[in-house]
């Protein structure tokens, strides 16, 4: 049995056949739609929702930026609680350095809160 000169040629032929198997019917359908089916858009057909009732508005929901700011601030202070808990549990056995480090951490936290408050982040307009 003679070996093919380039064994990869079979793969190329198979790949072209596989792509063609999918692409040819799609192309034919596309051409058919282009030449034989007039596009007939309309108010109801272009409506956002497919329902017997009239569509009101679109599918986009607008969230206000404050929603995310509240969410982020809640998340920040939520995480801080996890740091405060071991601090409180081991308070009696802490060295002075550890205590000062924790106080600096809390100071930065409060500073951030005050800054955000003054910027009006917590005021829902």
């Amino acid at each position, binding site marked *: 049995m003679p070996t093919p000169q380039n064994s990869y040629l079979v793969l190329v032929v198979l790949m072209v056949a596989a792509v063609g198997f999918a692409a040819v019917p799609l192309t034919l359908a596309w051409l058919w739609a282009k030449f*034989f*089916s*007039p596009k*007939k858009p*309309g*108010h*109801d*057909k272009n*409506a956002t929702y*497919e*329902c*017997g*009732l*009239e569509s009101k508005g679109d599918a986009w929901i607008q969230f206000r930026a404050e929603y995310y700011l509240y969410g982020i601030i809640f998340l920040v202070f939520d995480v801080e609680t996890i740091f405060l808990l071991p601090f409180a549990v081991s308070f009696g056995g802490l060295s002075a350095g550890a205590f000062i480090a924790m106080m600096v951490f809390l100071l930065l936290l409060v500073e951030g809160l005050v800054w955000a408050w003054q910027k009006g982040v917590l005021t829902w307009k």
Partner: protein
Amino acid sequence: MDQGLRSELQKQGVFTTTLEEVYNWGRANSVWPLTFGLACCAIEMIAASMSRFDLARFGAEVFRPSPRQADLMIVAGTVTKKMAPLVVRLYNQMPEPKYVIAMGACAISGGPFKQGYNVLKGIDRYVPVDVVIPGCPPRPEALIHAFMTLQEKIEQQKLTGPHRARHLDPDAPSEFPVPVYGEHDLVPPKNPQIWQPPVVQR
């Protein structure tokens, strides 16, 4: 090609067809109805799709839950005036080509509620109906018969020429005006483009 030549060729084992026939054959055997029932007729429509009657044999395999995936609306049941705008809107949302079967006495004429103030006297006042099924309610066999009638109708549609199918005419409307709830009745009470009251000769 005339029918005689075609039949002679068939005797020799040569089968001929046209693009139009292949296209219509494909469409007629893959009609997807909209899941849409209004009253008692809907129960018969459901029965037609179940195992005893098995509408799936005709390619109407799946009742689509969205008008955008359906090409046949079976108006199954009493169309009240409250429901009529919704029916028309759903019809408008279906892509072309689309067909309507009015199933049951109520859908085609108002049926036993014809004298009622709240029932539409036939859905053909607002959307073009292809096949009507009389009966109250019609049995699933009647729906299957209507379905076969629709299939024959689709198979006879022309692709070109002045008598081509409605969906192939760029000027033919795809959406029809949706009636609104007026003070006493639907406004307008009918779509004069597609429904003219019969003239009574006395």
